[in-house]
């Protein structure tokens, strides 16, 4: 039971909203790094401590996920969005726990990409807020491509590993009402949030008041690495799901 509560605290979101978001000294990018670290720890921990999830915990995390989706629609900040995506997927981590390690890792990788894009925005446009940085696809196609890849991965589309592992787990599991609730929430929650970001920053007319900055070769490196890793994961995911 204690383990379950700990698990929920690590991935459930609400404690962050109640405590961390209220402390001005802690910035959203720190919250993402902290929550990503905690999720990673939980994945490792769950591999060593076999544990059965409680239905009540799945329900609590599902409610937390729905609340997070609501909160995420209100933000236009990449850092915040990165950790919101973690919390949106919390019911999946709780429901599939040890088995969801590969999905969690793929998600973490995609969110890391989003985090790096946020860092690029912060360095060049003053903050990780993308509200007025519109039409990236047209003016900076490389950044547009990276961002498109991350968002497609998060929105659970193939050939990215998130979708493959998600599909693998749901195909092999027993379905019940709660299962349907979790699957539908995640399937559409991730999708709507990712599409929202696409609409707001990838699409739209370029903002004439902003000087759009190119990525340097050095800045491109983390993205190329992340996308390369995602594709490697995809190959593994395809093998897992098909063979």
């Amino acid at each position, binding site marked *: 039971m204690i383990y379950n509560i700990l698990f929920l605290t690590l991935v459930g979101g609400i404690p962050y909203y109640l405590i961390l978001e209220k402390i001005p000294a802690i910035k959203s990018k720190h919250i993402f790094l902290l929550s990503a670290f905690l999720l990673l720890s939980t994945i490792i921990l769950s591999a060593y401590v076999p544990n059965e999830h409680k239905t009540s915990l799945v329900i609590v995390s599902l409610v937390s996920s729905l609340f997070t989706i609501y909160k995420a629609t209100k933000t236009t900040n990449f850092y915040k969005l990165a950790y919101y995506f973690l919390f949106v997927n919390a019911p999946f981590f709780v429901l599939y726990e040890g088995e969801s390690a590969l999905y969690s890792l793929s998600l973490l990788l995609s969110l890391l990409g989003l985090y790096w894009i946020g860092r690029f925005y912060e360095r060049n446009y003053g903050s990780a807020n993308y509200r007025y940085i519109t*039409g990236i696809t*047209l003016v900076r196609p490389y950044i547009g491509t990276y961002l498109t890849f991350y968002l497609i991965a998060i929105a659970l*589309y193939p050939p990215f590993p998130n979708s493959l592992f998600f599909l693998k787990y*749901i*195909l092999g599991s027993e379905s019940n009402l709660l299962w349907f609730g979790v699957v539908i929430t995640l*399937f*559409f929650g991730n999708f709507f949030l990712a599409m929202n970001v696409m609409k707001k920053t990838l699409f739209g007319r370029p903002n004439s008041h902003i000087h759009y900055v190119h990525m340097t070769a050095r800045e491109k490196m983390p993205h190329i690495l992340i996308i390369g890793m995602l594709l490697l994961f995809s190959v593994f995911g395809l093998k897992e799901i098909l063979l």
Partner: protein
Amino acid sequence: MEKIILLIPGIPIIIAFLLFFIRKKELIPKVSIMLSSMIALLALYGTYYVISNDTQIVGFDGLLVYNELSAILVPYVAILGLVIRKYATKYMWDEAGYRRFFILLNFIFASIYLFVMSNNLIVLALAWQLLSISLYLLVSFNVGSNTAVKNAKWVMIIHKAADLVFIIAIILTYQTFGSFDLTELSAKWLSMAHTPVDNPMIFVIGLLFLIAAMMKSAIMPFHIWLPYTSEAPTPVSAVMHAGVVNVGGILLNKLAFLLILAPAVLNIAFVVGLVTAIMASLIMLTVSDIKRSLGYSTVGQMGYMIMEIGLGAFSLAIYHLIVHGIFKATLFLESGALIKLARHDSNLPKRLTYELFWEEKIKPKGKKLFNYLAFFAILPVVAFVGIKMVLTDDFFELNASIIILAFAWLTGTQLFLSFFKVSKADSLKVIFALVSSFVIILFTYEFIGLALEHFIYGENAALFYKAATFNVTTIMSLVMLAAIMAVGWLFMYTQHFVKVLKSDKKQDSLKWSFYKFLAKEGYFFNVIETLKGNKK
């Protein structure tokens, strides 16, 4: 050696990858066309191999198959892809994102090939989803336009819902039949077809697959994504109307043996197809935007296609989607070319159709309703009956699916007439052209369509007709045919010959309400606005 054909879905992905690194703009279409020609050649070789050896090419641990269905569809998609790429070379040249366009185009073709050639439900699901995301990125290609992005949102929402329904259907299929392999499943379904089956889960699975197909094929009430994608570049419209919307029909063909076990699903397919065909054909005639009119025309044709499936005429649906695809792609590509030419020359560019039919005639109008109805309604029926009587002795046991084909032809001709303004064209020539096209369609169906049925399903084709318990009798078919023709031509007539009412004259309220209902596309967007609370 023949296994190389199974690499077809991977080639467009390789092209997309290569295009990412090509610096010279001129090389982008060249590489794309050259390598897609290879796909077309491979596809033709594959078809030759399948026909000459009377066998299937299976590979990748049974995940992909080049069977009879692929042998027909893959060359069609490959040649269509080649034409569209060639067309887009110049058409898209001045657009921002030329490289992006070709990359996305290759992805969408990869997903269509994968879909057609998949022999496993999971591969099918992956191709199904890849198609959704590629389509979204292509429809919103003009990212600077708010309306294009907004309309693309509708595409995405409906396709995402289709993805979910599809995934749930394959989960239930696996739980019920214990396999994802389509060959294995088809054999199992076929063996079950010989004995009565009483498992409600089969109905649920069949229904879910039908709903997913309806969503992707823009069948009512999921049609709304298709007519509103007119801001997409013309080559994208051609891909959508000639390729993407057909996947619903292809899916149902792949699952044909499952649907034998669920006749109720076939009946539902027939009814929704019928409603879609009638409603979309009527809306097509009332909407004021020509591109939206074309969109509704495609929705209507998809309705016919689903109706054909509902009647058990699975192979006819394949024949229909190919013929319709060629027709609609030509229409879109020609309209795009016309627009481009018109930008340089203020006079309408003269095309073959223009020179043949367009002769300005000032004639007294308004008193020829009977003559026109007689010509346009009776002549096709006479031709139809004549051909059927020549070809088959037992005319009165005619295959109801032929009627559906006739509906399709009629809608096409209505569109044709809307497009070329029959009231001002040389009517006799037009009538001759339309009746000839009808005769050609019927003859090609009789000879090619039936050969196609034998090629794809062999002796099993009879099982589908037996399973389709919704019997459309000859009389019912003819009544429906006549009703649709009469309504269609009446609309045509009122559109071109009836004088517009002056403000002091009051329109008949029932007629007016019906017209408003159609012109406002069933008040769909009004309902959405009301739900959003934005009603002005």
